């Protein structure tokens, strides 16, 4: 992959759009118009609806009849916030996100660095595998992992049983949520590592060789070299990938839903699943909507730091 890197101009971009360079005021608005239009048209109405819904009390009756559900103010939010189970789910979601993001980024960084050290043919193998994993539908990944961890016929139980002193015959991975989440974290990390690794590896190819060489001459080694020379260059990419991973993992739904056969136990609820079951299984559409709104708000709070950093990196003006 590295060999394939085309020679690219090393010139850093000048500050975007130097003042006075573009006089036609309307042009940028015209350019973003289609995007804005698409977003506001297709997403705007559903979003407004979602927020409104969280202040109402919608049941199937109103849903089917198309009548307006009664307004209940903050009732949904009040009952959610006073529910201990909700906070349990929030805590679980946060922990899940931290673990997944930490593991993904740790593995991806390590592998990306490793890819610089190996022979070309090994690198191509690694890249091929990463790409193949990336292209795997979640639905398939979940089915394969369920199959691998099957209680009676799973390879994992069999392989662990080979360890001395361990008996995993008939071990059920989902009876204990800690074990179950181990498997789910594995699926999520497995699926996320390719994107993170490829991006980080690509970013690493941008680190000027002279820079590292110079540092090495100055006596920098291993960790020090990485921390002081390499990492600062790839930091923007690292921050971006971390943030995306956090957003995706915080709202994770498919993996859990599929791994638990569309009927997740309460111990397996994360915010995304909770919101969905409230809406579609229990038909408390408003409560589900409120949970979705809270999820976004929680993410926003967590993202403020990240957003400020990104905006600073992107808009040094």
């Amino acid at each position, binding site marked *: 992959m590295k060999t394939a890197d085309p020679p690219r101009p090393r010139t850093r971009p000048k500050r975007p759009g130097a003042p006075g360079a573009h006089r036609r005021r309307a042009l940028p608005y015209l350019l973003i118009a289609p995007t804005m239009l698409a977003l506001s048209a297709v997403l705007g109405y559903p979003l407004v609806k979602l927020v409104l819904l969280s202040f109402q009390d919608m049941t199937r009756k109103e849903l089917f009849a198309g009548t307006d559900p009664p307004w209940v103010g903050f009732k949904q939010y009040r009952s959610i916030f006073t529910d201990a189970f909700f906070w349990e789910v929030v805590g679980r979601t946060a922990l899940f996100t931290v673990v997944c993001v930490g593991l993904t980024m740790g593995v991806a960084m390590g592998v990306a660095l490793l890819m610089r050290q190996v022979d070309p043919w090994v690198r191509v193998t690694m890249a091929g595998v990463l790409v193949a994993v990336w292209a795997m539908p979640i639905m398939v990944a979940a089915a394969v992992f369920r199959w*691998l961890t099957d209680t*009676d016929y799973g390879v994992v139980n069999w392989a662990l049983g080979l360890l001395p002193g361990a008996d995993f015959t008939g071990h059920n991975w989902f009876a204990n949520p800690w074990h179950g989440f181990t498997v789910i974290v594995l699926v999520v990390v497995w699926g996320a590592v390719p994107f993170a690794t490829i991006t980080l590896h690509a970013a690493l190819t941008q680190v000027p060789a002279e820079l590292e060489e110079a540092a090495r001459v100055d006596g920098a080694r291993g960790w020090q070299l990485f921390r002081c020379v390499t990492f600062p260059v790839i930091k923007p990419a690292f921050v971006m990938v971390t943030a995306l991973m956090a957003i995706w993992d915080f709202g994770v739904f498919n993996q859990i839903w599929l791994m638990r056969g569309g009927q997740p136990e309460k111990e397996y609820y994360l915010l995304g699943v909770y919101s969905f079951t409230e809406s579609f299984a229990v038909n408390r559409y408003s409560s589900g909507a409120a949970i979705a709104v809270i999820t976004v708000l929680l993410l926003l709070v967590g993202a403020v730091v990240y957003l400020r950093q990104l905006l600073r990196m992107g808009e040094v003006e």
Partner: protein
Amino acid sequence: MSGTATRQGRRGRRLANTLGLLFSALMAFPLYWMLLTALRPASEIRHSPPRFWPSQLTLEHFQRAMETPTFWSNVRSSVIIGLGTVVVSLLIGTLAAFAVARFRFVGRRAFVMAILCIQMIPLAGLIIPIYLLLSDLGLTDSLTGVIVTYLVFMLPFTVWLLRGFIQGIPVELEEAAMVDGCTRFGAFRRVVLPLLAPGLVATSIYSLVQAWNEYVLVYVLLSSNDKQTLSIWLVSFQTSFGTDYGGMMAGATLTALPVLIFFMLVQRRVAAGLAAGAVKG
């Protein structure tokens, strides 16, 4: 590496190679298991202790999967939806990315913020409102409706990535072209677009994978069996009689194959592309 590799360096490289291959093997194992299940006779699928090598290979699962009545029409839907989403989101996204990267305008910051925040919205919560909207427009059970919906979920990331790429292209090149008599659009087409190619490819991969694999929304939006996509088709291997693992894994292989091929074809550009986009943050 330079020609005079020390012994230590060689040992380090061997260790790195071993680690790299080990990692590849671990990552690839689920894929191998999928292929193996797809290719071995049904009677061997549930066998304990598991066998890591098939006693004989068979294509019966693939045959059964491809003989499903709706297979080819589902392939068609997937292709239309995948390509439609990718093409349109690139088209619209490039314009917006160009605006954000090259112009300063009032509301730019807000626009960037909005783009970032949209990624946080949980899709599941929006299913019914989106359905109602499309239903008012007569776009339910229509591929266009699905493309439009996917579009808004792909656009933010598309704009974000492409923005980074465009920033990576020196603005002087464009200015030079305009001095030489090109129009603004001409400069964009002749100078920016060719340099943007890797970025476009990288971005298209991302959108394609997302569009190809999504199934919650598409299930609710499309009800005709022959309009549904391959990801819905895969679910049909879970019947009320039980799961046909052989057929499902064969189907999964078939589903992943087109994306994989596309990926392999463009992977060189993807690596370069993601680098540029990512580094420029």
